[in-house]
Each structure stands twice: as C-alpha cells, then as structure tokens.
C-alpha cells in the first residue's frame, strides 16, 4: 500500500503518543500506586452503625503521622462532621454509605470518589498544607444534597 510521506509521519506520531500514554498509565498504576478508589471491601449497609470501624467513625493513628479516617455518609451529612488532622499527615479515607449513593470529594485535592451502600471505598491523601478543607457530596442524593458536607481542619 502506498502511503504519503506526511501520512507516515502523523501515523508514527499517533503511535508514539499511544505508547507514551500507556507507559505513563503503567508507571502511575504499578510504580506510583494510583488505583481507582475501591479496595473491594464490603459491609452490610443496614448494620453500618454496629460494624467496626464505622461504629466509631473518626481518625485512628496507624503510624508515624499516618492515619485511617473511617467515615460514614448518609442523608444528609458525613460522620464525623468536623475532623482535625495534623499537618503533613498521610490519611487513608475509608468511607461507606448508610443509605443511598453519595459522593465524597475534597476540592483542591485528588480526593474524589463515589460512596456506595454495601461498599467501602478508600483513597489516600497527604495533607501537606495547613488550612480548612470541605468534604462535599457530588452525587445527587436527595432534597438536602447541597447541605451535605463535612469540615477538615489541618493544623
């Protein structure tokens, strides 16, 4: 098949771009540990309040400035509603829903996931800067969806 010289150039550029994107994706997934926010963990959505660790939602220290933050989402709020996090802490969020599908997003960070009843979704974020952060629901969940929030204070 005859290909024009320019066609060969742009086809090679497209092929190289595809390889470059796949390499970046692979490095991100396998070397930097970027994965979708799910650990395939399940919980009975009707017994969230009786199931550890969601019976006592909050911050649990698991290492040197490293924490598990177990949270519940429900209509219309999060438990706990106010969280204090030490500056520089690496926080593993584990979140589940007590009722319907909710969102869990912290503007200005990469924390953004769905929270589904029956599932525990997890995401990790290191809070390097002091300040206040909002946790917002970005899945429409009912009439007071826009009131659904929690507050993180990093200091």
């Amino acid at each position: 098949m005859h290909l024009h010289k320019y066609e060969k150039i742009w086809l090679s550029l497209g092929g190289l771009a595809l390889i470059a994107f796949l390499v970046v994706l692979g490095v991100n997934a396998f070397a930097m540990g970027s994965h979708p926010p799910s650990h395939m963990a399940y919980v009975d959505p009707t017994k969230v309040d009786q199931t550890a660790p969601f019976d006592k939602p909050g911050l649990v220290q698991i290492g040197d400035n490293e924490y598990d933050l177990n949270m519940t989402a429900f209509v219309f709020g999060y438990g706990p509603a106010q969280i204090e996090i030490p500056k520089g802490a690496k926080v593993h969020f584990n979140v589940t829903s007590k009722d319907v599908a909710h969102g869990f997003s912290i503007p200005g960070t990469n924390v953004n996931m769905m929270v589904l009843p029956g599932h525990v979704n997890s995401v990790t974020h290191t809070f390097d800067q002091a300040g206040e952060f909002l946790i917002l629901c970005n899945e429409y969940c009912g009439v007071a969806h826009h009131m659904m929030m929690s507050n993180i204070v990093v200091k």
Partner: protein
Amino acid sequence: MAREALSKQETAPKTKPHPPEEESSLRGTFVSVLILGALIVGSWAAAFWLYLSRG
C-alpha cells in the same frame, strides 16, 4: 506534421510520461493534524500536571 503528431498520440502506449501516481499535496492536512495533535497532547499534559500537583 499535425497529422503525424495526432497519429503518434493515438498509437502511444497507455503509460503517461509523468510518474504513475501523482503525489497529492497534503501540506494543509499535515499542518492541521499537527495542530490537532498538539491540542490533544497539550490538554492531556495540563490535566496530568493538575493531577500531580494536587497529589
């Protein structure tokens, strides 16, 4: 003479004197493809930079 040329044309073999496949000009297409490619790579790089900077 004119008659001679005409008969020559009529009896000439089907192959034409110029190259069999004329290269069509793809210069404009090439430039458009490069501009579009640069836009795609640029917006991808911007989103990826945003992702890394918020890490």
